[in-house]
């Protein structure tokens, strides 16, 4: 059934199906996009049909005097009396159409700028090859949340996302919520998100950024304010302590061995910032920036050999022994 839906919906273009869909219109800018897109499509379709009508009429029309203005009559330079007037009308029509579209575009742009004044939540997203570093900062400066490859937003709250890059140019794009904004090394850019509907969305890097550009997604969760606060409170906690001997072994491995030189787990000796923060890793929807859905099997596959799941990723294949692998996965799953 879902397969049938997947086949039909894109063609229907209704735009309510995908969780990564420019026609979703689930955010302030996104909704403006849908309105403007419909307007442009309508005007363009009208113009297109007009051109096609003219073209087919010109080609197919039955000619009373078969060679009226052709070489054979010697009048091939002459113009039909209506042509000049039609040309002028056509030019005026194009002009009016374009003017209307430009004005519409301009006002949409202004409305996009207006809905995003006075941000109530500020998030900093930093692009890396090939994952997103996400930091929330609050009025209480002692608190801050660091996570990766996921973005939680309370519905109806104006969020300002500050964008930076650590390496190459990336582009931040959550089509359901807003248009794109590039992350450029050496510059700070920003984008405003005003989600209107709760739900799960997906964002993706839109500027080619190297080998694994295809696997640089961002899981977006728009939730009620209460849920968001619950999530934030959980995120502020340090990494959960291991409960079983297996988890303890995993904890030891992660915090002292290869994992610890790149990853951070708050409240543990692992405090590097080269790779994604893992403090509440298991609470996320996906592994490795949307490469794999989060589940035990995928976690085994990823930790055992990331290079086969996402060839070229900066995370090396360590060559864990089976015991180490079991332990590491057990503790990673604990990181809710």
């Amino acid at each position, binding site marked *: 059934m879902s397969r049938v839906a997947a086949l039909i919906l894109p063609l229907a273009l209704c735009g309510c199906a995908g969780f990564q869909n420019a026609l979703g219109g689930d955010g302030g800018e996104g909704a403006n996009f849908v309105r403007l897109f419909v307007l442009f499509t309508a005007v363009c379709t009208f113009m297109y049909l007009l051109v096609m009508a003219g073209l087919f009429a010109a080609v197919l029309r039955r000619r009373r005097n078969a060679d009226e203005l052709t070489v054979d009559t010697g009048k091939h330079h002459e113009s039909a009396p209506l042509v000049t007037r039609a040309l002028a009308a056509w030019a005026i029509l194009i002009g009016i159409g374009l003017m209307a579209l430009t004005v519409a575009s301009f006002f949409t742009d202004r409305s996009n700028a207006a809905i995003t004044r006075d941000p109530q939540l500020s998030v900093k997203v930093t692009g890396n090859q090939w994952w997103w570093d996400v930091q929330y900062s609050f009025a209480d400066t002692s608190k801050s949340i660091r996570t990766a490859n996921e973005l939680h937003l309370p519905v109806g709250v104006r969020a300002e996302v500050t964008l930076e890059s650590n390496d190459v140019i990336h582009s931040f794009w959550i089509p359901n919520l807003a248009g794109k904004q590039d992350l450029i090394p050496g510059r700070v850019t920003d984008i405003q998100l005003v989600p209107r509907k709760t739900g799960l969305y997906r964002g993706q890097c839109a500027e080619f950024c190297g080998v694994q550009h295809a696997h640089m997604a961002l899981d977006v969760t728009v939730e009620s304010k209460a849920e968001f606060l619950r999530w934030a409170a959980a995120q502020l906690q340090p990494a959960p302590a291991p409960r079983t001997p297996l988890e303890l072994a995993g904890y030891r491995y992660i915090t002292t061995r290869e994992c610890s*030189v790149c990853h951070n787990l708050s409240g543990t000796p692992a405090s590097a910032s080269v790779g994604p923060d893992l403090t509440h890793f298991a609470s996320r929807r996906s592994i490795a920036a949307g490469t794999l859905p989060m589940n035990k099997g995928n976690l085994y596959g990823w930790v055992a*050999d990331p290079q086969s799941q996402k060839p070229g990723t900066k995370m*090396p*294949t360590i060559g864990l022994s089976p015991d180490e692998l079991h332990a590491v996965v057990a503790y990673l799953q604990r990181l809710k």
Partner: protein
Amino acid sequence: MSSRFRNSCAILAVAVLLGACDREERQSRAKPLGETVPAAASPDTIYPGDPSRARYVDARGASYEGNAFAIAQGQQLYNWMNCVGCHAHGGGGMGPALMDEKWRYGGRIDQIAASIYQGRPNGMPAWRSKLTEDQIWQIAAYVRSLSGQVRKDAVSARADSVSNTPPQTQTVRQPVRPADSDQQ
């Protein structure tokens, strides 16, 4: 066109092909999974001395040395692992300079890899069990490039960071010799 000319053309083409392959090959993982210590870490290379007398040469070094991908990865790891903190961008600081000709523990790639792997007295930590061997080889390949030891067409002129050395592609190749007389 004489056949000799044709043959030499063919040989040249093959050489170019192989050279390019070596330089540009992108290995996303080490070939032998889970191998042990670099072989050069035999006792006589751990201590100062003439590195040319080192007994073993680890053959794996060849696939990293002069490989552009390995050097680039090594460059990134060099920054990420904060090697800069002691060695700067090769100029040295708390740790010895890496862009001169003096090598206390040998300047071959396998000797450098062994130094990274095992650590060295007076502050150089051991990176075994922190980095994979693949990564250690990559850093070693990059360190070799700092003193101009590797082919110039495989190194990058600069990083996208504040520059405080002349471009790597212009580095003069330093002879590799032991630093017995030099007490840092």
